[in-house]
């Protein structure tokens, strides 16, 4: 006979089964969106981006070499084998970098294992151009790449002719050079190892990433150099090192500093040198600021920097360098650290910052003031999750993430929720707090955990002079905002109740004086009585 307990148990089990089924139906995304609350605890949140499509090399079909037929003939002679014009793209092998040229809307993919660059459109469906043989104007020969790791494309507005306007920089890792070429693939400049007086002889010159600023200065990121990026003048001569990280203040670093001040120089040289972590990737925004990220398991200093042209981190002054980028806490499972390890950064045309955490396969999206907007992505074998994400790029509200191990490009498109947040954010950063009120309200009806909406609404109330309501919005959301609102509120409160303050103070003073007089009289009476 089934007991009451058993029936209850069966009912509970069936309810659980039903809820599990329904949740698996609802969860159409392979990852869950989350945000961080005031205490740095993760709270569930709406996702701002959903996976749109996953494209791998085979999806590209065939591609066309950009070389002319005569050039190909020459290459065939040089190589000793026939090189076809049309090629089967096939699977990508260890793609390391992706770059979107906003002006021409072209996507450049560095297919490192196959030593080639693929060029396609931003929809990833159009014609693919394969760049693998480059004409070197200095030697007059056709050259190939060897394990390229990074690419950067720049437009020179005062070029002599239109075909010399687009300049492509490739970090040719194994060849130890940065070939600089025009769109037609003719290498006109080769940046190589600087002379030994500037560059230590035991350090290799293997470019990992490369970028160039508006003036044409070339910045080369090399993993074995901790002094920052190697900066070259537009003509390829070494100019300086740029934007090193600070040394992390560990107990050992402080102890070494102490001994160095006490001991003489020769004795101090025996100590281990404290060197900063080298940064692993960088990006440049439209205003010429260079953003660097440091990929490290343990370091917390200068994980993410914004450098001005002088190489100074502007985040230090703003206090943003004290923030935690990526996941708040790192956790350990079987001795493995699963904390965030930021391997790539992208600044899009609106100034939105996206950091790529390669260990957990997540994208962290920030405003230009380092306020966390969205977290999306994850690791796994499911479609839309990553194995080893290597690069991120964003254009026109679409985020492209390159997966090195899977050899695929995943595109994310913004959800309606993401659109509303960005609309509100755009109004907010322009200072149109009142206009942003509607979108922020809409954000809160969809996700009441979305903390930045409260800050937006608080600022809207501030601009209306409703300081008390603003304080309510800022409470547990923004200390700075609360401070501003409270300052106004306190001032108003004191001004409104000034008469009461004066009355209370006067009454207290009078009461004290009267009491003192009474006590004196009483004492006198007592003393008189005794006599």
């Amino acid at each position, binding site marked *: 006979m089934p007991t009451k307990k058993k029936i209850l148990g069966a009912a509970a089990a069936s309810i659980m089964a039903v809820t599990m089924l329904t949740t698996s139906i609802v969860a159409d995304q392979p990852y869950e969106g989350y945000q961080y*609350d*005031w205490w740095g605890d993760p709270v569930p949140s709406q996702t701002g981006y959903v996976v749109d499509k996953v494209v791998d090399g085979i999806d590209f079909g065939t591609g066309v070499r950009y070389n002319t037929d005569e050039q190909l003939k020459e290459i065939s002679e040089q190589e000793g084998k026939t090189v076809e014009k049309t090629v089967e793209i096939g699977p990508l092998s260890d793609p390391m970098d992706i770059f979107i040229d906003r002006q021409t809307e072209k996507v450049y993919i560095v297919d490192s294992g196959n030593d080639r660059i693929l060029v396609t459109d931003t929809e990833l469906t159009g014609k693919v151009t394969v760049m693998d043989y480059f004409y070197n104007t200095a030697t007059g020969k056709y050259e190939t790449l060897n394990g390229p790791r990074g690419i950067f494309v720049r437009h020179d507005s005062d070029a002599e002719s239109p075909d010399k306007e687009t300049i492509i920089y490739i970090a040719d890792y194994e060849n130890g050079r940065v070939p600089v070429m025009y769109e037609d693939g003719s290498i006109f400049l080769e940046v190589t190892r600087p002379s030994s007086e500037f560059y230590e002889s035991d350090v290799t010159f293997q470019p990992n990433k490369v970028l160039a600023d508006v003036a044409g200065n070339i910045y080369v990121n090399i993993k074995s150099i901790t002094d920052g990026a190697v900066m070259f003048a537009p003509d390829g001569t070494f100019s300086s090192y740029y934007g090193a990280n600070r040394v992390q203040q560990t107990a050992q670093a402080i102890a070494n500093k102490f001994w160095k001040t006490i001991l003489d120089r020769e004795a101090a040289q025996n100590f281990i040198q404290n060197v900063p972590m080298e940064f692993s990737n960088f990006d440049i925004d439209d205003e010429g600021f260079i953003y660097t990220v440091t990929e490290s398991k343990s370091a917390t200093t200068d994980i993410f920097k914004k450098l001005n042209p002088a190489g100074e981190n502007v985040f230090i002054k703003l206090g943003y360098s004290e923030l935690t980028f990526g996941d708040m806490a790192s956790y350990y499972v079987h001795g493995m650290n699963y904390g965030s390890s930021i391997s790539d950064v992208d600044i899009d045309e609106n100034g939105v910052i996206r950091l790529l955490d390669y260990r957990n396969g997540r994208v962290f999206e920030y405003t230009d003031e380092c306020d966390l907007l969205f977290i999306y992505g994850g690791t796994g074998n499911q479609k839309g999750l990553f194995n080893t994400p290597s690069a991120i790029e964003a254009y026109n509200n679409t985020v492209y993430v390159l997966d090195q191990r899977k050899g695929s490009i995943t595109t994310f498109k913004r959800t309606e929720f993401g659109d509303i947040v960005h609309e509100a954010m755009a109004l907010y950063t322009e200072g149109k707090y009142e206009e942003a009120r509607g979108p922020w309200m809409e954000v809160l009806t969809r996700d009441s955990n979305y903390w930045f909406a409260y800050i937006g609404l608080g600022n809207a109330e501030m601009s209306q002079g409703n300081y008390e309501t603003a304080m309510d919005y800022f409470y547990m959301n923004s*200390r700075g905002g*609360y401070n501003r609102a*409270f300052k106004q509120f306190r001032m108003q409160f004191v001004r409104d109740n000034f008469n009461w303050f004066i009355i209370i103070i006067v009454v207290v003073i009078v009461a004290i004086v009267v009491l003192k007089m009474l006590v004196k009289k009483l004492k006198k009476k007592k003393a008189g009585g005794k006599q």
Partner: protein
Amino acid sequence: MRFDLDMPAWKWPFYVARHPFEGFEDLRWKKAYNMKVALVIVFCFFLVTVCQTVMTGFLYNNNYVKIFNIVPLFTSTIVLFFTWVVGNWSLCTLFDGEGKMKEICVVSAYALVPYLITQVVVILASNVLLRNEAAFIMFMQYFGIVWSVVLMISAIKTVHQYTVPKTLIAILFTVLAMVIILFLLVLLMSLFQQVYVFGYSIYTELMYRFSM
């Protein structure tokens, strides 16, 4: 005598606070140790710490108050205080201290009074001050702590009739003794917990046998 020392028991802590050096000597001479007042002060210590956690203004509150848990607050005030008393007593009886357990308890509690008063002021002020007026709060906080520490040294010195260096060494070793006591307590608790688990599993085993 400048002051009338025949005052009610509740006035003593304030008198002692105002006279950090001869106050405890007067207390000792008058034998005015009052356990009730001391216990009230220790309870206030607990209460003020709770208030500090919950009622400090948002601008100054760095506590994790998302989930309010009273156990760590209780441990860090009342348990800590009595560990201090027991540790100090057990150490100083070995090093010819003259203080009895009750006396140590009372003077230690009296020494807390300035800290409690400033802490109340700090809690009130944190609700009306802005971030850039933090200097006042910092000053009050340190002022209270320093005053209480001075009182505590004076109290231990007087109650055991020590010299100043001996007092400082005694305090240092008291802290060590406290660590040992707490360690043993934790050890004891985990042992008892295992005994409980053992007993409980026997109970459940028996229940299975007999209820079938």
